[in-house]
């Protein structure tokens, strides 16, 4: 088994005061290193929920999550945080950069709490790689949307993750900028052998993905 991440028979239920919402219903899913998987589906179909479970931000109500072959379903908050830091990079639709930190500091941020002497060099290289070598000291409000997303991608890569999870990474970008971000994803998974799992409504993402998974009403089609 060389899946870097895998969900087996995963259910996620939300108890919203009497009514139970089933956001994921018996989901089986996996991704391999270097693979680019697109997750599509209508609004409310459970895409973000699935990504959160994959990213160890949330635990399933039922079923098992395997990360690099290890059962990580019932880890403590502390262990989940350690695994997130080691294995997973997140990219959000609204970038979620820290407004008080420069581009470089934002990229370094995941390494900040912990002794990591090479972090600054890695962050500089990553920003150069995403084409922002000239913008190291700019704060997020001095950057365009596409530049912010590229900073966010650099941040997701700082700890050399095995999986990149992106929730609508091009949702706030115009078509052309979106394409450049997707080109970057493509390069990353090729060169770094990273599994990229991206939730999207963006049809052009289909051109880049090795495989598209469709979620409807919490079920994989």
């Amino acid at each position, binding site marked *: 088994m060389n899946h870097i991440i895998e969900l087996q028979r995963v259910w996620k239920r939300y108890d919203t005061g009497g009514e139970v919402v089933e956001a994921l219903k018996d989901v089986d899913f996996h991704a391999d290193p270097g693979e680019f998987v697109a997750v599509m589906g209508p609004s409310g179909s459970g895409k973000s929920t699935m990504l*959160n479970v994959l*990213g160890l*931000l*949330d635990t399933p109500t039922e079923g098992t999550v395997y990360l690099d072959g290890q059962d990580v379903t019932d880890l403590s*908050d*502390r262990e989940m*945080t*350690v695994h*997130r*830091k*080691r294995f997973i*990079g*997140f990219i*959000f639709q609204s970038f*979620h950069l*820290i*407004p*008080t*930190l420069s581009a470089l500091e934002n990229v370094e*941020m*995941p390494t*900040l*709490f912990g002794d990591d002497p090479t972090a600054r060099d890695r962050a500089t290289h990553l920003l150069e790689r995403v084409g922002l070598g000239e913008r190291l000291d700019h704060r997020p409000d001095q950057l365009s949307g596409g530049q912010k997303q590229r900073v966010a991608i650099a*941040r*997701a890569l700082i*700890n050399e993750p095995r999986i990149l999870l992106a929730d609508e990474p091009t949702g706030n970008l115009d078509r052309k900028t979106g394409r450049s971000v997707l080109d970057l994803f493509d390069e990353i998974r090729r060169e770094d052998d990273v599994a990229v799992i991206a939730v999207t409504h963006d049809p052009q993402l289909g051109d880049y993905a090795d495989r598209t998974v469709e979620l409807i009403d919490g079920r994989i089609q």
Partner: protein
Amino acid sequence: MSVLDDLFRRVPALLMARRNLSRNRIRSGLAVLGIIIGVLAIASLGMFGTTLRTGASQQLGDIGNEISVSPNFQEGIEELTERDVDEIRRAVTDGAVVPVRSESRLVSRGDRQTVTTVYGMENPGALYEAEQGRIPDRLRQGALVGSGTAGLLDVEPGNTISVDGRTYRVAAVLAEQGGISLVSPNNAVIVPVEDVNGTGYSQVVVSADSGQAANESAVAIREALNEREQRVSVFELQSITAGINEFFGILNAFLIGIGSISLVVAGVSILNVMLMSTIERRQEIGVLRAVGVQRGDVIRMILAEAGLLGVAGGVIGAILAVGAGVALNAFVLNDPLATFQAANLLYIVLAVGFGVGTSVLSGLYPAWKAANERPVEALRK
């Protein structure tokens, strides 16, 4: 600058904290202002207490070193005899014994005259200092005039005055005694003891070298003279000074208590500021947690923020408090340097410690709240 960078690299919570505080300067500034006021209140009220105490003990002078032995009227004893005085002399190992006779007499110089207390003393030099002239070791002739009487009669050393018709050369005019005194010389005239009628003494003043020696003397005198019958009553001024010290202790605690209230208010304002800022930064903290920052680090970051507010407020408050203390002491005691004494240092350290402590304590709840929010919840809009 590089020292600061180094510090921030080593303690990233501080870097994040500092950046977060500079995000809303007015709000942070107001929170700091609260702490400044609290620290200033505690420190300066504490120092105010010290100043009052210092002022009071300056007023009191060395009276704690004096005791007064007087005949016990309740037992029908009207005056102290030579024998009593001898026994007192024997009982007192460390200090001067001054037997005193007194009566009221008409004192005049030229056409000015006044009725004053006339004390007969053999060795007034043990109790008083001269303003002009010299006090002889043994007063055998001549008179000493208190400053008030001297002003009234317009005398200076070398003049002659008449006390009930008897003339004296004035040997000295005594320095005015500001504080409380057992035998106040200010409005009196002091003449040789034989010149005052009577054989006994109305009181015996013992002037010891220290408060402790005074106390020991008092005990010894009671033992020697009151063994068979209660011949004398012994009055220690130390009981007054002890009472006054206790009073100032209570006053100080009260003042600091008032100051502490303002610090508690400041703490509430920090709690409010931190709570608001962590709620505003909910998503950011969610992102931190998502990318692998542990709960403990989030707590440290927010506590560092609260702590920085406290340290800033504490340092500024302490500086202002020293300024206030210098101004107060310059005004009340005419001695600005009186600010720099151990008791005041203690108040300042105490106030700054309270300030920082209050801030960090106020940061605890917001920190705990922020760290315990699940990142999934925080990241949803």
